[in-house]
């Protein structure tokens, strides 16, 4: 349940939206992408100041005590502008994992720092809470005296180059374990070349890196974290879908061909109307998932899966059609449409494919 009132939530959203509208234009987006960090750190710091980084963190640890609905609103706005900040990994998945499975005082320290924008966490390995699973990793954790040390390699770790901690999942004989490793000389990060320039993926190499093992990890708890991660990503996609749709509608209203705005052509209109169904379905699904999580509904599992494939597919379809509807101009690198389209493609395998989520949705309908 969220501790934030509806009015406060709306105010938060409006404030963040206004800020991004002013500060997160395409030029800044591209500059952020081109920077070492991969995103504009001033946005991240502003998010900390607005309390957004601690939105899913308890008030006990300097957070705001919000719920999935609050996370969704942040992600929708982040998605609209494609801001490639590590919010879902650090402030949702990592924050939830730490809150659940890391004992005080480390927990308090980490969560406070996350809320304050002083710390980011990258996530890798295998396990339900890992958004991009690397089943081929060679990670191993061993007890060395009192502490754990990590060795081996793992890939597909997002934003790992600048992360302060790495949260790594391992699965042995179907049992999940997870470890927190501090960025240090014992960890080297090699950047991978990606199709979406805003996506920062790394291969991490560990040689005797010290690790904190997460404790008392239960399947239900991990599943809760997973669902919150999925719902957050879905909301981001819903926001991005609506944004590229809006950009396209504006183009249709103002671009003239054959002496008329191209949006006055009936076939284009009908494409637009069909796409609006996808846009709104994405928003509704993301919202329903967040609400189900906040209310602790037994349907949460179902709604989260529904949001996952609906938002993935909607974003993919709408961004792909956006290029088509723009025509040649969107075939150029300098137009923003392909950045939305690449982001949509980059999201297809996050937390599993659409087909997998569809199957899961059907299963959870039976269970509900």
């Amino acid at each position, binding site marked *: 349940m969220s501790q934030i009132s509806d009015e406060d939530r709306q105010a938060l959203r409006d404030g963040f939206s206004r800020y991004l509208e002013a500060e997160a234009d395409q030029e800044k987006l591209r500059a952020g992408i081109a920077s070492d960090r991969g995103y504009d750190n001033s946005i991240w710091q502003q998010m900390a100041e607005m309390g957004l980084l601690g939105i899913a963190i308890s008030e006990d640890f300097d957070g705001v005590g919000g719920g999935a609905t609050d996370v969704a609103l942040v992600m929708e706005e982040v998605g609209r502008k494609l801001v490639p900040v590590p919010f879902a990994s650090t402030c949702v998945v990592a924050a939830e994992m730490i809150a659940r499975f890391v004992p005080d005082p480390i927990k308090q320290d980490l969560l406070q720092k996350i809320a304050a924008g002083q710390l980011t966490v990258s996530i890798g390995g295998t396990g339900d809470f890992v958004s991009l699973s690397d089943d081929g990793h060679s990670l191993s954790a061993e007890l060395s005296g009192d502490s754990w040390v990590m060795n081996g390699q793992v890939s597909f770790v997002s934003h790992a180059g600048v992360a302060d901690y790495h949260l790594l999942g391992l699965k042995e004989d179907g049992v999940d374990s997870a470890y927190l490793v501090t960025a240090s000389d014992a960890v080297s990060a090699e950047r991978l070349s990606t199709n979406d320039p805003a996506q920062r993926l790394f291969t991490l190499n560990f040689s005797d890196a010290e690790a904190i093992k997460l404790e008392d990890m239960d399947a239900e708890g991990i599943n809760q974290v997973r669902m919150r991660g999925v719902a957050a990503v879905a909301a981001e996609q819903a926001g991005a879908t609506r944004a590229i749709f809006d950009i396209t509608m504006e183009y249709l209203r103002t671009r003239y061909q054959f002496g008329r705005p191209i949006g006055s052509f009936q076939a284009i209109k009908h494409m637009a109307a069909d796409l609006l169904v996808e846009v709104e379905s994405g928003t509704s699904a993301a919202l329903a998932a967040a609400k189900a999580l906040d209310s602790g509904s037994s349907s949460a599992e179902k709604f989260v899966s529904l949001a996952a494939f*609906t938002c993935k597919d909607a974003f993919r379809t709408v961004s792909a059609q956006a290029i088509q509807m723009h025509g040649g101009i969107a075939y150029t690198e300098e137009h923003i449409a392909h950045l939305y389209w690449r982001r949509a493609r980059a999201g297809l395998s996050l937390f599993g494919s659409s087909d997998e989520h569809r199957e899961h949705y059907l299963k959870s309908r039976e269970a509900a």
Partner: protein
Amino acid sequence: MAILDRSASPEDINSVVEAWLDQHWDSEKRCAKGEDSYDEKAWLTKVFEAGFCVPSWPTEYYGLGLSQKQSGIIEKAFAKRKAQGSARDRFHLGAITVFKVGSEELKRAMLPVMLTGPICCLLYSEPNAGSDLAGVRTKAIPDGDDFIITGQKIWTSNAQEAEYGMLLTRTDWDVPKHRGITFFLFPMKQDGVEVKPINQITGESEFNEVFITEARVPASHIIGNLNEGWTSFQTAIAYERLIMGQGITERRGKSKADSEPQLITLARKYEKYDDPTVRQKIAQALAYRELNGLNMQRAKQEIMTNGSSSLMSLGKLAMSRVQHGEAAIATDLLGNAALLDGDDYPDAANINFDAAKAYMNSIGGGTDQIQKNIIAERVLNLPKEPDLDRDVAFRDVKSS
């Protein structure tokens, strides 16, 4: 007993209605208490007098001035006992339209009659004006205090039962089409009105052709103003589309939200539920239905907050995909069995009916194509297409 007004709590409303129904309705016999059979007019009059017909309307117009949410409680209580007559402010298109745009005189004269009678039939479409409703050619010629009507209407449901029809006519042929239309509340029970059922591809005959030959309607029955019928009509059609978007065109007895969806039942029965390809199709179909439900929930939320919602217009369009899609999957699930039909083969009969009936949503009440135009122009503000007939006197407009 608590007074039913905006300040009444849900519990109060419920208990008042339950008490009233306890007193007046015999749930066993399905008629008014103390009667032996159901007398529609008498029962509806009782409901009307209690204000339950149109609870969301103000008290001066036969309602109770309640909110939509409060009204819903009354509707539910009636539905639970299968009692007719509540929620006519949501489903009696004719009464709604007269209430929204009728003259004071018409409202006073006709709302009590309409609310205690059968629902109105809709005399809109004509053989040559299907999607293009503003292309009506049914003539209305003034004659004293009346108008004399001649023309042909089509796709009229309830034409046999209806006492009144909402009639779209042409009263001025020398102005562009939208400006010469008059909308009437037309008495059906008179000479010169002939009703002929249409055999539909579903096997039903819910629709009729209506042949009108020099029939009469009083000038006082104009809904709105003379030659401004197109404006009044917009109110009526908007409500109709809203109702369709809620899936009300679906066959009764469809599985409820909390029971197992028909597709899953059929897939199990025809032993295809383990087929991953089938499961993907079913999952997506169920998702489309659920997503439309979620969109409509958001729409209702927005309407409660802002008074309107652009989302509402998506419902009918989305429902086409839902209905055609589900019927196609169900057909495939049955395999050979889908070839059969009739009472001996209820699964086949159901899915074949559903497959045909899906056109009711995608064609009826404005085709999907018309609906997409509306969404694009009114919701998305995309520029209108050039209208070839907008500035032409109607008598010069080209037709088939």
